[in-house]
């Protein structure tokens, strides 16, 4: 039980810490809404990364997929596509990238780190090429309002639609991992690929699906990022892959595979937002914030290992 609660206790701790350090400024309803908004993009990407990391893999290309998706959506809107189709086009482009990654990993038998490191560069380049190395400015649409703070007449929504999107997807991923055969196969492959093979698990097909989902969720994060930017920007989300991986790892995911949880990854993403936001509220310069965030990753994983060893 403690294993599940660890990241949540960490979140409660940082929230209480900043509430105490900055009374009246940090713990307000408005600021909590802003922090949820700030978490939506990384949180959505972390859902796919959770699946990838549980399977024992890694995906370094997600930041580039986010950028590529914003560009594709903006270009399609410029072509006159309705927002829904443009969104589907963006997500579809992301899943094609994932299909390519999965195929390279399973066919060429290359390490996921290498394949996705290559795709990290290649997809960023593709995004820049498609956008002619400029921002793509499309006509405005409702897509731009997914991550706006709620107007008074929308209060019944409680949180902005983009946050609901993340939460809905989280429930879907949770159910996939826990209640479907394919989801259990992901755990089995991550824990011991040879065993999975021995037991007749279709390892190659499952991995292909894993990377398609990983990139697919990165593309959905790209939809939210587009909504936030309102333009297609091929240089956006540089380094976001590391924030996403950090969220999963803080949430209890093991880079060795076989372990990780959806709730943990979202909490991990929230911890990083809270720290960034809290540091801003305390008027710390950016570099302090970066040091603190880096420290938290190491401390969180150390605590996690320590707890697991004690549990044994």
């Amino acid at each position, binding site marked *: 039980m403690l294993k599940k609660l660890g990241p949540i206790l960490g979140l409660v701790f940082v929230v209480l810490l900043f509430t105490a350090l900055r009374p009246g400024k940090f713990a307000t309803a408005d600021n909590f809404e802003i922090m949820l908004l700030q978490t939506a993009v990384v949180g959505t990407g972390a859902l796919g990364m959770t699946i990838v990391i549980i399977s024992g893999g890694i995906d370094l290309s997600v930041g580039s997929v986010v950028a590529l998706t914003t560009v594709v959506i903006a270009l399609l809107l410029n072509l006159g596509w309705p927002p829904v189709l443009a969104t589907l086009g963006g997500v579809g482009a992301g899943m094609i990238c994932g299909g390519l990654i999965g195929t390279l990993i399973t066919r060429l038998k290359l390490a996921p780190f290498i394949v996705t490191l290559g795709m990290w560069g290649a997809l960023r380049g593709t995004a820049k090429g498609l956008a002619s190395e400029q921002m793509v400015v499309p006509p405005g649409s409702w897509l731009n309002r997914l991550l706006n703070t709620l107007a008074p007449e929308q209060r019944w929504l409680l949180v902005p639609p983009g946050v609901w999107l993340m939460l809905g997807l989280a429930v879907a991923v949770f159910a996939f991992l826990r*209640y*479907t*055969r394919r989801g259990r196969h992901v755990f089995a492959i991550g*824990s011991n690929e040879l*065993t*999975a093979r*021995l037991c007749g698990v279709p390892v190659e097909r499952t991995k292909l699906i894993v990377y398609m989902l990983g990139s697919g969720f990165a593309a959905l994060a790209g939809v939210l990022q587009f909504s936030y930017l309102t333009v297609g920007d091929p240089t956006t989300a540089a380094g976001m892959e590391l924030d996403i991986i950090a969220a999963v790892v803080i949430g209890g995911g093991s880079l060795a595979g076989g372990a990780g949880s959806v709730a943990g990854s979202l909490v991990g993403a929230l911890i990083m937002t809270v720290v960034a936001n809290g540091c801003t509220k305390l008027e710390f310069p950016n570099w302090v914030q970066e040091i603190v965030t880096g420290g938290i990753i190491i401390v969180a994983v150390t605590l996690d290992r320590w707890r697991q060893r004690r549990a*044994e």
Partner: protein
Amino acid sequence: MRLEMRGIQKRFGATVALGGVDLNVAGGEVLALVGENGAGKSTLMKVLAGAHQPDAGTMTLDGQPYRPRGPHDARLAGVAMIYQELALAPHLTVAENIWLGMEPARREQRPRAAAALAQLGHPEISPDIRVAALPIARQQIVEIARAVAIGCRVLVLDEPTSSLTGADIEHLFTLIRRLRADGHAIIYISHFLEEVKTIADRFTVLRDGQSVGTGNVAGTSSGEIIAMMVGRQVAELYPRSPRSPGEVVLTINGLELRRGEVIGIAGLVGSGRTELLRSVKTDWRRTGFVCEDRQLEGLALELSIADNTTLPRLPAFVRPQTLESATSRWVERMQIKCRNPRQPVGSLSGGNQQKVALARMLHADVDVLLLDEPTRGIDVGSKAEIYRLIDELAVAGKAVLLVSSYLPELLGICDRIAVMCRGKLGPARPVAELNEQIIMAEAIC
């Protein structure tokens, strides 16, 4: 006495791993340390090697108090451990491995390593060769040379034959006798009582963290030692109910597997036995497979017993509770010792892990069971339970194919045995027509 351990106690949290163990070994003597998995052998040896600090008890080495603060301390004092999984750096040379962590002057390393290897009767192993280029048996000799080179007084060998076969085991025994003659005190840990009888002078039995008996190997029967290990009489190690072979369900290389029959395949490691089993397409609707390396291939150690058991036959949509209750039945039937089906397989003992691998086949409800060394490295009590289970399954109409290097077990539970040699499978003959000599003669063809 070279080494005396007296009243050693060690607890981990609430678990008492060692509850007052006594152990003595003299120079020029081989002491066998036997006991079931989980009896405390590893913990005791880790205390000896300085990896664990005892909570109570005393140790003396040649009459001097011995309290190692860490493994390095123990090594300096002359206590050397050789673990089941060899602890060598494959990318380094033999000499570099021998001196790893001790590092005398660079120019002394080669000649002193060569001297240690020569002392063991293996001058042909070059100190300059990379360890990865040596076969397992040679790598083990390098480990022993590492112990000898630092002038060890007590040498502990933990299941040293588990990865060796026939001739290499004989070499190892010759080497151990040579070390004994040189006055080393040797502690030999093994599951194989035949080995204990061959190589050891005395034995000490551990059970549940207590030393429950010690004596001379010469005056004690295997049955008496087993009784001490399990704390009860094992009625029949190899049960064999009357079975009646039925229809043929699978043919491998001309070998017909029938329902209700247990067929054994004997042969040396490398004779192609495993490849033969692997050549059978396991679809888990009809044939199930238990492989020889549980940790590496057989089981997903971080996952739960339920996850491992149900993996080959998961429904498209999974209800965890359903899987757990289905698994509970197997846990009960096979007497898997665990807290609940959600416990990770990695936290079980070797014998119980293997039972999970067997439970998986039963859950998948296969007709044919392919078992590759299913009892390797597990304790006598669990072995007896696995044999009983194989017998039950055969009676229930399953076809069982058992590959094993351990002839007493093959002769004990099989109906027919075929011998494999250099990739060729001989005819399967009834056990009544066979004995160990005949099988060995065919295996080394």
